[in-house]
Each structure stands twice: as C-alpha cells, then as structure tokens.
C-alpha cells in the first residue's frame, strides 16, 4: 500500500506537503478519480521506461545522430527513412526474416497441431509427459541456443555424428547459408511448437463430446468429423497462434545471434540483428532508429489484427 500512496502522490506534482491536510486525500479518494488514480503509477512507469524512449528514438530518426561522436546532430528530415527504405541490404534482411518466419511458423503449426491431437485424450502420466513437451517454450533463448549449438557441433554434435554414419564424413550444418537457416528454423520451431499445441489443445477440449457421439451414430468419416466438428472449434485459435507466432518470430534476435552470429556471411542476419548492428556496431544511431520504427510498424499492424480477432472471439463465446 505504501507504494500506491507514494506513486499516487507523485502523480499529482508537488502534492507532497498538501497530502497531510486530508483535503487532498478526500479529493483523491473521490469515486470518479478512482480509475485514473489506480492506473497512474502504471502509466507513469510505462511512460518513463517505454513511451519516452520511443519518442526519443522517433526524434533521433530525423537527425544524423551518432552515439559515438560528440558533434551536434543536425536535422535531416526523412533522409534516414529514405536511406533505410532504399537500402538493398535492408530488403535482404527482411527477406531472410521472412523466410525464417514462414518456415518456422509453418513447422510450429504442423507440429503443434500433431502434438495437440496426441494430448487431447486423457491417459496415465499425461501431466508429466505434457510437461516434457511444454518445457521448451518456457526456456531461455540462451539455453535453447546452447542445446542446439551442441547438437549441431561438427565434431561432437549428435547430428554430425548421425549423418556421418551414412556418409563417413563429419556434417557441418552451419557451413552453408541454407543449412544455417535450417538450423535456426529447427531450433525456433522446436522451441515454439508447444505454444501452438497449447492453443490447439484448448480448442480440442472445448468440443462438446455429444457432437462426436452424434457423428458416431451418423457414421461420419474421420475426415468429415474433423472438418465439420473439430475444425470450427480450433479455427480461431489456430489463427491466433499463427499471428502471435508471426509477431514473435518476426522479432527473432537471440537464437540467430547466439547460434550462428548472423552468419555465414549475413545469411541468417534478421532485421532485428541488422538494426542492432547499425546501432551498436556501426554507430549509425539515427538510421538504426528509423529501421526500428519500420519493424515497430509491422508489429503494431499485426498486433491490432490479433486483438481484433481476440475481441471477436470473446464476443462470440
């Protein structure tokens, strides 16, 4: 509670000394101010740590600021946006990101769906086995990157050894651009298929059993049963899973950064990594901000679609 009072008083600037009088407390306690008062600490924190930095970098994106130089930055208008939008490298990075998102989200949907079918029944030990399958999405990107680095290692890795049994040579997955992309996609899909599974599972268990019983009587084929009974219940959840995972995978940074470092060459460098390089290695701070805003734009659009579907689903049922 102490926390509420201090942050609440902080919200009304310079209210510290007046607070004793009781008049202010009564004023704050009025029912019509309850909502704003309770929300204020959260909004202030978010403003200071998120919105303000966002505005700052929005401002920066119109200048030619470089974090490692002391010269006074000058106003450049939309130059940075023009530079970013016409930079072929940026488009290459968007393409790389697109390929990773497309491949990984597709795999997540397929495996997530299959795993959900498997766990839709009740059976002994279900809770423990479910934990084994759900664990990957709760792990840190760093640990997942470490597992897969060990797994892909050319001399010690299981993958290299297993393929070597057939070819007689060590297999270096991370040596080629295509192999490296596959490596990232496998790690990401492994980590996030459980997420899709969880959503599909929620849909599967919500199907009323009497519908299946009715289908049994009608001798409906399994495919027909799936299409007419099961699918309508999981449709919106699949769509939400698709959107949610697209948003998250689009931001992919850690896995690529840690497994391949963006290489070989720049074959697994996502837009997020490129923005990071622009900002922290090339110190083109303003240009990095402009690129970051492009990424933000995509994420905001996807998030609005996501919320639109969530709301529609809540209204329906």
């Amino acid at each position, binding site marked *: 509670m102490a*926390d509420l009072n201090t942050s609440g008083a902080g919200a009304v600037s310079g209210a510290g000394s007046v607070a004793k009088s009781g008049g202010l407390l009564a004023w704050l306690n009025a029912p019509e101010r309850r909502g704003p008062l309770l929300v204020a600490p959260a909004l202030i924190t978010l403003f200071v740590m*998120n919105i303000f930095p966002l505005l*700052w970098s929005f401002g920066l994106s119109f200048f030619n600021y470089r974090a490692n130089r002391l010269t006074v930055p000058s106003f450049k208008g939309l130059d940075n946006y023009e530079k970013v939008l016409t930079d072929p490298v940026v488009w290459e990075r968007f393409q790389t990101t697109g390929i990773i998102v497309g491949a990984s989200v597709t795999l997540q949907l397929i495996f997530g769906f299959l795993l959900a079918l498997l766990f839709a*029944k009740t059976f002994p030990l279900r*809770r423990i086995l479910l934990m084994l399958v759900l664990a990957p999405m709760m792990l*840190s990107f760093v640990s997942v990157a470490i597992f897969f680095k060990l797994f892909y290692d050319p001399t010690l890795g299981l993958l290299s050894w297993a393929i070597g049994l057939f070819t007689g040579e060590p297999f270096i997955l991370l040596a080629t651009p295509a192999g490296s992309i596959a490596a990232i996609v496998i790690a990401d899909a*492994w980590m996030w298929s459980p997420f899709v599974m969880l*959503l599909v599972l929620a849909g599967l268990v919500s199907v009323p059993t009497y519908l299946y019983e009715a289908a049994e009587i009608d001798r409906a084929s399994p495919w027909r049963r799936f299409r007419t009974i099961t699918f309508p219940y999981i449709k919106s959840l699949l769509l*939400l899973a698709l959107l949610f995972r697209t948003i998250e995978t689009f931001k992919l940074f850690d896995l690529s950064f840690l497994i391949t470092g963006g290489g070989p060459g720049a074959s697994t460098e996502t837009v997020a990594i490129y923005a990071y390089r622009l900002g922290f290695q090339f110190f083109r701070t303003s240009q990095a901000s402009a690129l970051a805003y492009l990424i933000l734009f995509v994420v905001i659009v996807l998030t609005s679609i996501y919320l639109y579907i969530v709301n529609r689903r809540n209204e329906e049922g």
Partner: protein
Amino acid sequence: MAYRKAAFRKPGQAGWLYSLVTGVIALIYFFPVLWMILTAFKTRSDALAIPPKLFFTPTLDNFKSVFFRDTQAGDAVATGFVQYFVNSAFIGGSSVILALIIGTLAAYAFSRYPLKGNDTYMFIILTTRMLPPIVVIIPIFLMFRVTGLSGSYIGIILLYTAFNLPFSIWMMKSFFDDLNPEIEDSARLDGSNDWKVFFRICLPQVLAGLAATAVFALILTWNEFLFALLLTGSDTRTVPVAMANTIGGEIGVDWGLLSAIVSLFLIPVFIVTFVLQKQLLRGVTFGTIRK
C-alpha cells in the same frame, strides 16, 4: 479395429499403451534438453567422446566447477556464477514484486472503473510488450548512459518492472474480468467501501492468478537476454549473459561445464512449468486467451 475397441471406453480416455507411445514421442521431443542434462554429468573426456556416449559413469565435477575453479596452485577459487545466480534472482524478484503491485492496481481499475478510451490504453499497453526490444533498446541505452543508471541494479530493475508491467496488467485484468461482480455489489450494499471490496473480496479471489502472474513474470525476466547484455555491468550481470559469454569462448567450449550451468538454470523453469500447467495458456498469451 483398434478404433472400434476404443469406442467402448469413455470418450477421450486412453490406456497405458497410449501412454507408452506418447511417452516415447515426448522423450524424443525433449531429447535436446535431456542430452544437455546428460552432458552435464559427463567427465571432460566422455563429453568429447566420438561416437557420443549414451552410457557413462556420472560425475558431479561439472557442477562443482560452475562455482569453484581450481587454480594452478591447486586451491579452489569462486567463479562469478554464485553472484550471477544471486543477481538473476534479486533483479527478477524485485522487478516482479514492483510490477505486480503497480500492475494489479491498474488492472483492477481497467476492469472495474473503465477510463475513457479504456481499450486504447489496453492496446497501447500490450503494444509496449509486443514491441521488438530493438526499438527501445537504443534510446534506453542512451537514457541510461545520461542518467548513469547503466550497470546499476536500480536501472535494470526499473527497466524490467516496465517490461513486466504490461504482462501483469493484461494477466490480472483477465482474472478480475472473470470474477462475479454480484458478490462485490452485494458487499457494497452491505456498506463496504471500495478499498474493502478490493482487499477483502476481489484480491482473495485472484490469489491463484496473482501467483501465476508472478511466476510467469519471474520466468520472463529470468530468461531475458538482450537488455541484460547491454545494460548490466560486471557486478550486476545475470546468468543468461554469463552463459552467452561462455559459448563465445574461442578456445573450444567446455561443454560439460556449460551444460551444468544450463541445467542448474533450468531447474526453476521446470518446476514452474509443472506447477502452473493449468495457467500456462493464459500466461503465454498475456491473458488474451483464457479458454
């Protein structure tokens, strides 16, 4: 034929054979983690063995060397990892408590006293959670440099508080929305004021939700890498950054040691996944999907 037989059972119920098949699939899925845990118990030469060894005599040496390193003189020196684990727990814990206090109050207000443009606020709040870290990391880096917060506990705790806040608000709002408003109304009729309604009626009913939110936020913070990489100093470094530094080593990675660190780091995550299974769906979708 098998299907016909199954039809006689209660619908959706399967037996031990099904458990066995699912168990094998689950273990295959889980294999990368399992392999890492096995590697943690191997001696250096077993870890380097080709073909990889599935059976070996386990040793705890790797776990010991996570915390103590033998010097050439022969005495054990503490590595930084105790510090990093303490940092991770302390930074995570403080920021989660802060975010939970501020976030629960806000969530209650968003649920019970909607503001003008309530949905817009909720949207903006969710966007701050969805936005790529890379968008805010540059200005936050500059901000921390100007204010001297870079490398300090207070800086990273405040940042993680803001990072956990949208999540806490959305989660807690979804729990408050689930409550039956009639109970609160009748309490009000009986003369309880709003504070009493909040503390005596609403809060006790969402305690489970509060716990789930806290634990989820804790895991998110426990796992966070990019902010920690750029904003912590050598004293405030968290485990993910320390782990990433260990793989960065040029002179061959000590896989046994690294596996031991990762295994230790995973223990809290597994416990949480098991305990919170029922809340997992709501947790991973920030409270947007309940059922």
